């Protein structure tokens, strides 16, 4: 475990020294200030009611969360895709692995370090943004902690996929493949919503398959659900087919069995990554 923690600390230190955290931190603060200012304009619009401000705030919060989850997903892919591959290409791994450290410890250390970075960014940026929105409009989503947990999980899922690809593929190739999966899963989620609305089993199966194969969109919908106020949910359900295919709406929270599947998926991918890395000749 000590070796895992050493590599995790090294991964976090590298992100810090390479100014990744600083750049991300500054950009995030700028975005939060700008969006909070935008939110603060909502109550000042002419003729707007408090209920309308609340409705608009809830929808805009979901959109802002989508932006942050996108940044997190793309960012974690860009950081994870080269993590093992670059170390092999540059020779850093050649110097480290003859030490008394297992390849699995190196890999799990990288994963842990990246997961901590994803968690810190999701919690930090999310809570700051929600604070800004609350100060600007007085609105808070129903369950921000659960929503941010799902956003972080989405980032960790994509990061884990990129890490697996990194054990065998060049950074660029692994990163592109992970991003393709991410967007395909997003489209799969929209297909699922459409299939459910129109009770089309084929489309439903495609959508469910994509959510099982790449759980990013399933987790994103978990985040959406916990950002939706109850009255908004009731109105949206009443709208029926009119909501079909809206990628920013979730009718139900992810079932516990799906959360269990995501945990098993993560464990499976990590096991696969360990086997792949252990068998590779360097």
């Amino acid at each position, binding site marked *: 475990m000590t070796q895992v923690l*050493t590599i995790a600390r090294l991964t976090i230190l590298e992100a810090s020294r390479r100014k990744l955290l600083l750049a991300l931190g500054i950009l995030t603060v700028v975005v939060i200030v700008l969006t909070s200012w935008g939110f603060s304009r909502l109550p000042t619009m002419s003729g707007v009611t408090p209920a309308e401000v609340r409705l608009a705030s809830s929808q805009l919060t979901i959109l802002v969360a989508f932006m942050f989850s996108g940044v997190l997903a793309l960012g974690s892919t860009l950081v994870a895709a080269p993590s093992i591959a670059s170390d092999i290409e540059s020779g850093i791994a*050649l110097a480290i692995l003859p030490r008394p450290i297992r390849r699995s410890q190196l890999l799990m250390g990288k994963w842990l370090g990246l997961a901590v970075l994803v968690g810190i960014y999701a919690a930090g940026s999310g809570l700051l943004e929600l604070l800004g929105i609350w100060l600007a409009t007085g609105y808070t989503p129903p369950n921000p902690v659960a929503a941010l947990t799902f956003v972080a999980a989405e980032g960790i899922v994509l990061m884990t996929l990129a890490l697996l690809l990194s054990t065998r593929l060049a950074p660029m190739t692994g990163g592109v493949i992970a991003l393709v999966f991410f967007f395909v899963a997003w489209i799969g989620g929209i297909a699922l919503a459409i299939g459910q609305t129109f009770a089309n089993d084929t489309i439903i199966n495609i959508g469910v398959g994509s959510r099982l194969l790449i759980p990013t969109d399933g987790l994103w919908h978990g985040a959406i659900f916990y950002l939706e106020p109850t009255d908004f949910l009731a109105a949206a359900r009443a709208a029926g087919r009119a909501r079909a295919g809206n990628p920013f709406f979730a009718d139900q929270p992810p079932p516990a069995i799906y959360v269990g599947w995501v945990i098993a998926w993560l464990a499976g991918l990590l096991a696969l990554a360990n086997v792949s890395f252990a068998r590779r000749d360097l």
Partner: protein
Amino acid sequence: MEAADAASLAVHTQDLAKRYGKTVALSGLTMSVRRAEVFGFLGPNGAGKTTAVKLLVGLAHPTAGEAWVLGAPVGDLQTRRRLGYLPELFRYQGWMKAREVLGLHCELSRMPRSDWNAEIASALELVGLSDRADDKVEGFSKGMQQRLGLGVALLGRPELVLLDEPTSALDPVGRHDVREIIRTLKARGTAVFLNSHLLTEVEQICDRLAVVDHGRVIATGTMAQILGQDGAVRVRVTGLPAGGRAGLGEFGSLEDEGEWLTFRGLPSERVPQLVAEIVRQGGRVYAVEPRHETLEDRFLQLLKEQDQ
């Protein structure tokens, strides 16, 4: 080989083979490196030298055969604490300072934290980087990176150090320093496995060596054994009748280059006899030069023989 036998050696391989797809990198490598000796590992490009080193430190997996390092099968985690390795092509984290790189490797080696400072200072001193200890590695030249790599390999007083082309990026002063470091390691009782293209370097510091080609050892032994015990002599002669040359065959294999005759496999104590015989046959001797075969000559000859 019995485990007890392997334990007495720094490195032992038995029919070690490695194949990458259809490419055979190593084909039945069998060799032994004794403890506290400097062992040179020579071979042309593509002979399998780096592959062999990577197999010994667990970076690649053998297709067949076995190998022991410091008495344990390769890959043994505990043994790696007693091992130092300088890869041929490597880089350290450019964003770290030299001192931090060494600290990281102290940590990964599970060295007691109380020993770190002394070990780091000693390694920096040994490789001549004390004044650059707090500089970032990204600002280092290739030669300085190689010095740092050597420092990393020497951390914790390892019992075996594997150096893969340790001087490829160094200037003559750096090469001299590395030779001195290797001599210091030998004096400490550390076995050094030196993979190098620089034959003069190997000639100067290695106790024993192996020559590999196409993934196999084609010659192994001490420098004297590899070069051959018997030397060669060149003699400049004029006036020797045609028949006389044939009669000189008893002094060794003769290479006739006009005025210069080279006798191979001639013991030095027979040189006066040779000169007397030439004079007896009417020849006039202008020069007698003992010819020492260099490792490069022998190396090229071995490869030529192998190809034939």
